[in-house]
């Protein structure tokens, strides 16, 4: 197809680089430099979407990020599919494939358009008033229907293969927006030597200058001035220029989030490049130069394809070389409409008429329009438009007093409207700055600042090219100066008025600040009109008036009830008009209505850049021990324990977990097994006051523990509940080797540091984490000594010289070791601590030395079974954060004689020794083969009616190969006193009879420990 609406020359597109693309299956041509929107318009395509609620045909409203209508799905392939992109922001590349949304079966004929006929029955909030009968029908019938109707595009169905990345950056001055104000600000800051970052959401810097054909700056055409300024900035190494980069969020302490689109505009992106990048910029000072957005006028049928914003029409013509149509009607409340009319006329577009809401037209632009012979009609409104899928005529009526004279039909294929400009204060508002209503220009402007920022140019109501440039330069200078005095990200002061040290003589049309907010008069029966306020959400002026009639007076209420301003454009084109309509309906001043808060992001921002590289195994650090790879090579199955991967069990060919664990258990009980305990937390407590510190932190008494001995320690939170446990070795009078649970390690160290630093700073003791210093190999079983003996130097392993619960330092296989004689299995056992870098070497040496004894590597599951057979608890399994030491039979570990320790006072509360507390017991099922489910609840009377009184629950349960039956641990109300009783484990289908027993099923006297 040809570009029928393309001008012969002009615009910033590259006419030497033609591009073909597809939209809804049709192939079109465009040029490099086009957006999808400009290229479609060049091909005469205006119908690009259907509205959210009524499925009304929709065209382009704007040319930028404020576009509410032209949402498309762009798909590079099945996985690289992105819904809801604005055609006005999608850069054209060869082969681009886009499709319209929210229509069925097709854009031209959309069944959903039926809704438009029923629209009288679908006013705002209708769904709150109905769908309530019959009960249950909401979920079964209405909701599914509504959901299917709602939603815009279709979410991707395959994982996104593209990469996203993140960068932290720091600068003296961040300038947001590279229009005239932003460019001048960046220039000023850069010239003063500040480190500057300049970002703009568009593909090209220049902002409004990109749409200028006649303006001149410092005696040069705007385009030339722009090019020279950019060259100047690029040449400076204290300046970073970021195009295609949207400043979308203003976070506390001047952290501004930018989203950079790195490859989205490329036909064939380099796979090494990220698709998008999140910049987290910490700026000493920020200059907001975000410009202003043109306001639509709210009149009947203002949403027909072909009705668009005047200045956007001008942008299509001047920047992209595309005529928005051939016959234009202009509807304006300010001089912007005239500027567009004059440019379009020059570009060969017939201007059928200019309807001006204003009665007296004294401006220079209206004069030029009249001189140009254009039919200019003062005090005139558009009361409606015609045309099915594209506007074909507009009705123009004179406003007389309150009402409108019968309108005249004027043929046209495009209506260009302008209600004036709304300063873009989104980021200022996000920064928590207070907005101030400016009655003169009828706009909210930046008022009191909170962060260290200042606004420049149109976003603070400064208009006129020269004034904007000079304001930008002044703010840039002031920001650079302030950044030199930067002390801290303290609350920013509202910037004092700054004047530019440099003049920017410029010639350009001056638009003044006229404008209109609210709905224009039309004199028609409102029942049969739709004057859109929020295009995308199909909110009309009627809807807003209805909300006010129903008592929704706060703008936040009106917004939520009508959904105006809640679409994906976040009200960029609708908020002010909605305010105007509410203020008229309630007869209240605009500032009294309030203003809805602007929330991040400024424009919708891809989830992927927030996640960045944190995907798959890089979501969190994946921690492996020094022995991990050996275990993997020997077929281990692994389980996640906090960030660690731990060997769960070591299945041999054909074994399931049950069989593997049974074999591993037998090996330990009958000969010897080895286990990787490296993940246990370790802390070295060193200093003259080490023992005193241990006394205060643990429930146990430590003073009398001799160097060379080990003790099992219990630690409470201050509220008296068990926090962690572990074996502690005293290596010297002033040195303890503390172990903690795997998951508890960081918690325990932080807990200790807290008390040491803030409660007992006088103690001469220091804590050093040694978790990763030591690989820990548990060698357990009656043959453990025999296996280790030949490998050890300098330690006598005989039970006389090295009794149970001792620690010695020496060497193993030539590597320094701290050897513990300790057991978590009930068998004779040792734990070999060696520097982690030698972990695998020593492990393999022990494995080799153990071969004659059939040494068997075992995993966490077997470790759990073996300790359960002995009734040893696991903190976090037998305890759950609500257990006292006594609840889990650790009363013996509480130093009764000690005056104080962390948690002692809380234990003294009556509730902590109540007779009905849950206490640890053993459970034996009457039917030995039944293995209880962990977490199952225990009751006295399974037949009792709901709610069934529960006595406790199963904390651990396993089949025990050693005992040839199932065993379980449980906590049960008053459990210790109930030992010998029979209770029931209540399952959905049956009640399992269990006997309460002492929680020690194997070698209760502990004779095997000292073998």
């Amino acid at each position, binding site marked *: 197809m040809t570009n029928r609406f393309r001008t012969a020359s002009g615009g910033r597109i590259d006419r030497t680089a033609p591009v073909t693309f597809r939209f809804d299956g049709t192939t079109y041509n465009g040029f490099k430099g086009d957006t999808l929107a400009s290229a479609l318009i060049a091909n005469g395509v205006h119908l690009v979407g259907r509205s959210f609620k009524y499925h009304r045909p929709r065209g382009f409203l704007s040319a930028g990020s404020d576009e509410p209508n032209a949402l498309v799905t762009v798909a590079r392939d099945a996985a*690289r599919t992105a*819904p*809801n992109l604005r055609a006005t922001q999608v850069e054209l590349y060869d082969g681009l494939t886009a499709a319209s949304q929210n229509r069925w079966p097709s854009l031209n004929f959309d069944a959903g358009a039926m809704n438009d006929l029923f629209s*009288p*029955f679908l006013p705002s909030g*209708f*769904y*709150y*008033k*109905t*769908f*309530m*009968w019959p009960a249950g029908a*909401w979920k079964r019938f209405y*909701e599914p229907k509504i*959901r*299917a109707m*709602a*939603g*815009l595009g279709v*979410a991707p169905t395959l*994982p*996104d293969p593209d990469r996203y990345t*993140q960068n932290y950056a720091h600068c003296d001055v961040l300038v947001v927006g590279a229009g005239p104000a932003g460019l001048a600000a960046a220039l000023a800051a850069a010239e003063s030597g500040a480190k500057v970052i300049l970002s703009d959401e568009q593909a090209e810097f220049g902002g409004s200058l990109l749409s200028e054909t006649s303006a001149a700056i410092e005696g040069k055409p705007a385009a030339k001035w722009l090019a020279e300024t950019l060259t100047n900035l690029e040449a400076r190494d204290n300046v970073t220029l970021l195009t295609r980069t949207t400043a979308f*969020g203003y976070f506390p302490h001047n952290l501004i989030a930018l989203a950079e689109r790195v490859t989205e505009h490329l036909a064939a992106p380099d796979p090494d490049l990220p698709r998008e990048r*999140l910049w987290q910029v910490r700026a000493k000072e920020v200059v907001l130069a975000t410009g202003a957005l043109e306001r639509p006028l709210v009149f009947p049928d203002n949403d027909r394809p072909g009705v668009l914003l005047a200045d956007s029409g001008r942008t299509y013509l001047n920047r992209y070389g595309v005529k928005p149509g051939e016959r234009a009607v202009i509807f304006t409340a300010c001089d912007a409409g005239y500027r567009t009319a004059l440019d379009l006329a020059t570009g060969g577009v017939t201007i059928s008429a200019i309807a001006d809401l204003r009665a007296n037209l004294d401006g220079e632009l209206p004069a030029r329009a009249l001189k140009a012979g254009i039919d200019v009609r003062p005090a005139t409104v558009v009361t409606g438009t015609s045309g099915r899928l594209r506007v074909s005529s507009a009705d123009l009526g004179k406003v007389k007093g309150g009402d409108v004279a019968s309108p005249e039909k004027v043929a046209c294929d495009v209506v260009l409207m302008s209600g004036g400009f709304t300063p873009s204060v989104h980021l200022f508002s996000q920064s928590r700055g207070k907005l101030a209503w400016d009655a003169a220009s009828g706009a909210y402007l930046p008022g009191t600042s909170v962060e260290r920022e200042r606004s420049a140019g149109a976003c603070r109501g400064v208009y006129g090219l020269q004034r904007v440039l000079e304001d930008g330069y002044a703010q840039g200078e002031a920001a650079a100066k302030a950044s030199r005095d930067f002390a801290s990200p303290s609350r920013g002061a509202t910037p004092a008025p700054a004047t530019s040290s440099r003049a920017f003589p410029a010639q350009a049309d001056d638009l003044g600040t006229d404008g209109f907010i609210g709905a224009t008069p039309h004199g028609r029966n409102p*029942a049969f009109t739709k004057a859109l306020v929020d295009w995308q959400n199909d909110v009309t002026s009627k809807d807003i008036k*209805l909300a006010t009639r*129903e*008592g929704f*007076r*706060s703008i936040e209420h009106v917004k939520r009830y009508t959904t105006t301003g809640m679409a*994906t454009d*976040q009200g960029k084109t609708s908020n002010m008009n909605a305010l105007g309509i509410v203020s008229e309906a309630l007869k209240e001043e605009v500032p009294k209505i309030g203003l809805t808060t602007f929330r991040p992001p400024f424009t*919708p*921002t*891809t*989830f*992927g850049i*927030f996640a960045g590289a944190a995907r*798959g195994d*890089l*979501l*969190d650090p994946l921690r492996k021990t020094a022995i991990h790879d050996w275990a993997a090579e020997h077929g281990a199955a692994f*389980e*996640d324990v906090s960030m660690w991967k731990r060997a769960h069990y070591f299945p041999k060919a054909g074994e399931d977990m049950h069989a593997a664990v049974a074999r591993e258990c037998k090996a330990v009980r009958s000969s010897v097994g080895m286990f990787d305990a490296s993940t246990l937390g370790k802390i070295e407590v060193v200093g003259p006051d080490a023992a005193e510190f241990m006394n205060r932190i643990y429930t146990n008494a430590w003073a009398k523990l001799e160097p060379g001995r080990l003790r099992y320690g219990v630690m409470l939170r201050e*509220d008296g509940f068990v926090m962690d446990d572990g074996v502690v070795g005293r290596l010297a009078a002033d040195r303890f080797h503390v172990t903690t649970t795997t998951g508890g390690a960081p918690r325990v160290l932080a807990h200790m540091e807290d008390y040491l630093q803030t409660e007992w700073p006088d103690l001469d003791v220091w804590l050093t984490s040694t978790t990763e210093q030591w690989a820990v190999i548990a060698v357990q079983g009656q043959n453990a000594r025999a296996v280790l003996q030949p490998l050890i130097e300098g330690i006598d392993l005989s039970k006389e010289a090295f009794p149970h619960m001792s620690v010695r330092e020496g060497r193993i296989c030539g590597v320094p070791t701290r050897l513990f004689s300790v057991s978590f299995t009930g068998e004779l056992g040792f734990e070999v601590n060696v520097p982690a870098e030698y972990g695998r070497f020593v492990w393999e040496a022990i494995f080799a030395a153990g071969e004659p004894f059939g040494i068997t590597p075992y995993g966490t599951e077997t470790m759990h079974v073996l300790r359960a057979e002995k009734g040893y608890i*696991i903190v*976090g399994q037998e305890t*759950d954060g609500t257990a006292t030491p006594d609840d889990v039979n650790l009363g013996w570990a509480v130093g009764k004689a000690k005056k104080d320790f962390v948690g002692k006072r809380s234990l003294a*509360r009556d*509730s902590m020794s109540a007779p009905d507390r849950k206490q640890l017991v053993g459970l034996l099922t009457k039917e030995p083969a039944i293995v209880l489910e*962990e*977490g*199952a*609840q225990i*009751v006295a009377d399974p037949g009792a009616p*709901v*709610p069934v009184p529960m006595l406790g629950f199963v904390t651990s349960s396993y089949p025990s190969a050693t005992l040839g039956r199932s065993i379980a641990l449980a906590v049960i109300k008053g459990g210790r006193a109930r030992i010998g009783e029979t209770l029931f484990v209540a*399952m959905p289908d049956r009640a399992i009879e269990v006997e309460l027993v002492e929680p020690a099923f194997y070698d209760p006297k502990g004779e095997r420990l000292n073998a």
Partner: protein
Amino acid sequence: MQKFSGFELFRRALGGHHGWQPQWRTPEPKASYDVIIVGAGGHGLATAYYLAKEHGIRNVAVIERGWLGGGNTGRNTTIVRSNYLFDESAGLYEHAVKLWEGLSTDLNYNVMYSARGVLMLAHNHHDEISFKRHVHSNRLNGVDNEWLNAEQVKEFCPPLNIKSMRYPILGGALQRRGGTARHDAVAWGFARAADSRGVDIIQNCEVKGIRRGPDGAVEGVETSKGFIGAKKVGVVAAGHTSVVMAMAGVRMPLESYPLQALVSEPVKPAFPTVVMSNTIHAYISQSDKGEMVIGAGTDAYTSYSQRGGLHITTHTLDAICELVPQFRRLRMLRNWGGIVDVTPDRSPIIARTPVPGLYVNCGWGTGGFKATPGSGHVFAHTIARDTPHAINAPFTLERFRDGFLIDEAAAAAVAH
């Protein structure tokens, strides 16, 4: 109260919808009331509604600093469930779910309660034991909750990535009766129903002080609209509870934290249920409008700023993108923050206070929305009878002194 129904909607449509009356009045405060509720959020409005409906106490004012429903009610991720571990909590939240199920009809306002199921994901053995403990305990308490293995999880929620992720999903606990509701509708529905029973809802009226008589008992509240007398005052101020209670000289076991949430752009139905993963901190469901509604964890520090750090959002979304990698290309539309008041055991306080005539309902932390009707119902009972309903009897202030904490979080504590 003007009836809401499909027929009425049709009838009024013919009149160009001019016949609709305000859903609630905008009254000036009277000199005094029997009961003043401080805070016109869902819980406060529900309290007023049930005071009027079930206890015949209609001389009630609900005082709101801003606009009704503008606090956490209008900012949360609208998850409703009752599969709590302890009898006390299960009793409270199940009471609420039962009310949710009939709420639209009761209020004649469609609160869009959608029982689409709440699925809590288990990523490790500890999660699994903890969830099974919940499932068994819930069953015996008459609360629906069932264990799904990994395959069943995938079947119930096909978009989930259960295997090829950092912490593979081992299974999950599903409460089919759980789901979501339309948060604004809850506030507006209770407001309309309470107003129609004579309750004065006074917006843009800030409480400046709580006046106590010589005997120490409550006499009323000082407000930006002057003094308003009351025999009884119920404080339901969520994040601001500590501030309001301090006016009566009561120090609370509370801390207020920022809690953020966000939504994606709307898309066609792509996520069938509510999914929660406490292990990687991700909460997601899809709204009727098509937005993915996503909850984050709280920020680390106490704050009343109603905004939090970007690093919290990035952490939330890396978890979401790991759970549902095809959503990586979706885009965030809005991100906002609320203020949640958290107690030491993360369970609420719904109780009398040491001050005669002063009652408090607070400490809902990140999970208050789900309890809205139940909370209002038992709090109304507590105020009307000056004694707690059996359901909220355990949720006292004294439990912290006596050590009878209701610590669901500790019970699910990750360790070992």
